[in-house]
């Protein structure tokens, strides 16, 4: 433990977690309420990115449809809310169950394919949900749906700080679980199948079932992030799950460091920090340029691909 704290990566991770833990106190002290909403989004997206990192980083399964779970978790909450069921105790389990069911279906079908076909089929399934949501005229169609936040009794999700801490606690839980999973018997099979699928099959491992379970777990966490996103903005719309968002999630995972425990967290922080900084900066240069802040990611990703395969995490590795 002490040894590990000497590594720059561990120090940065610890500082980052402490900073995130006290963020509501800081934003209140400096009266920067907007920063808290950015922080909330970082934390929620991190939950989804951590779960994507599990299948993409450890499992080698490049899912291009992970944002579908934002939408599925979000719409499950949204539709129940529109139908007058406000209790989080009902909304959240239902939303998770639907996410799990969807992950099972998509996983069972897409895991029969490999490589580019896997990417395409996960994208196709996500597009399916996207258009389905757009077609839900009764629930706002393309324009989306305003909802009221889930009611829990013990905590008030309308309170920004309380909601943030709930998200942060769930992120910590996600990081803990996915971190443990990486070094469990299950995680070893998942990673082994990425390394040499034929050999793992020849050894007698149920590779398909292991991958399916990984997809289901990732889907559940993705759905959780969707539930939180819906509650963050009190709003759901098809845009939550456009293919661009799935791409953003992959970018976050790659940027942070594929298969690195805290990589998605670094990735999400950098991603949103860049958005918040670049947008106004570009708008300052020329009105309207802010829209194109993502262009900056082109060069950044090229640099990561060429010089820092391990993402931001590799830049922080201790040099002997």
């Amino acid at each position: 433990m002490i040894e590990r704290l000497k590594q720059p990566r561990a120090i940065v991770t610890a500082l980052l977690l402490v900073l995130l833990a006290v963020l509501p106190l800081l934003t209140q002290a400096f009266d920067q309420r907007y920063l808290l909403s950015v922080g909330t989004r970082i934390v929620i997206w991190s939950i989804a990115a951590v779960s994507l990192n599990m299948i993409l980083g450890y499992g080698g399964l490049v899912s291009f449809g992970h944002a579908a779970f934002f939408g599925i978790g979000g719409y499950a909450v949204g539709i129940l809310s529109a139908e007058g069921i406000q209790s989080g105790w009902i909304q959240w389990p239902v939303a998770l169950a639907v996410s799990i069911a969807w992950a099972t279906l998509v996983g069972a079908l897409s895991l029969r394919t490999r490589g580019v076909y896997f990417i395409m089929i996960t994208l196709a399934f996500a597009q399916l949900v996207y258009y389905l949501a757009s077609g839900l005229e009764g629930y706002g169609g393309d324009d989306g749906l305003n909802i009221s936040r889930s009611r829990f009794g013990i905590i008030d999700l309308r309170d920004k700080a309380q909601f943030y801490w709930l998200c942060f606690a769930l992120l910590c839980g996600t990081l803990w679980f996915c971190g443990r999973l990486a070094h469990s018997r299950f995680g070893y099979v998942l990673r082994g199948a990425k390394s040499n699928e034929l050999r793992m099959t020849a050894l007698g491992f149920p590779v398909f079932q292991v991958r399916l379970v990984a997809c289901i777990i990732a889907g559940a966490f993705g759905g959780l992030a969707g539930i939180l996103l819906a509650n963050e903005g009190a709003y759901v719309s098809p845009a939550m799950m456009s293919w661009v968002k799935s791409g953003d999630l992959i970018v976050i995972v790659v940027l942070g460091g594929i298969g690195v425990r805290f990589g998605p967290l670094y990735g999400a922080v950098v991603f949103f920090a860049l958005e918040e900084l670049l947008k106004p900066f570009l708008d300052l240069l020329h009105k309207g340029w802010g829209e194109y802040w993502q262009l900056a990611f082109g060069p950044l990703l090229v640099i990561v691909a060429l010089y820092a395969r391990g993402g931001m995490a590799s830049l922080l590795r201790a040099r002997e």
Partner: protein
Amino acid sequence: MTALLTADRLVKRFGGLIATDNVSIDVADGEIHALIGPNGAGKTTLVGQLTGNLAPDSGTIRFAGRDVTHLPTHARVRLGLGRSFQITSVLREFSALDNVALALQAHDGHSFRFLADVRRDRARRAKAQAGLDAVGLGARATTPAAALSHGEQRQLEIAMAMAGEPKLLLLDEPMAGMGAEESQRMVETLRGLKSRCGMLLIEHDMDAVFALADRITVLVYGRALFCGTPDEIRRHPEVRQAYLGEDGA
């Protein structure tokens, strides 16, 4: 000696080619039975039928007292039929120790455990380490498999195959592509493992075959030409002409 594995009059055709032509062969408990023959003689095809990767057109295979002719590969593995591959196939990103640990895990079958940290599983580590020690890789435990030499990777394969505690090990050219020194190490390794299981050894390296084998079967054009002790093989005129002569061994 009781026969652990008995193949009786196996036939395998590929179109017009008879790759296995009425071959009968047996391996006894604790015996090293070598299978030699020129390229294309049908050695790998024969092993494929024994492992269950290929179905014979006719004939029967008995293993450990059971008829396994129609059992799938994994069921034969469970009965104690282990194999190493002609092409090296290890998990390159994993350490040597983790490769063996995974092979052990495949054998004990508990893969849906999500939280317990395998790095803290002392029993698992100790068992994997013992497996590495048995093939002379004890000092390379933490080295990634990709960084091992070709010879070491083949040793690692043997350790992985041994993790299943097989009664019989099918070895398809374990010395292929090895230098003299590496071959010698492999000979030592296999000799050391002999007390733990029987082996069917396919090998072109005649020095290794004569150093290890209790019996040798010569396969030519899919037919078992002769079966006997190394001494008998050396003296057999037909074998010398048909195989040893050709290869100049």
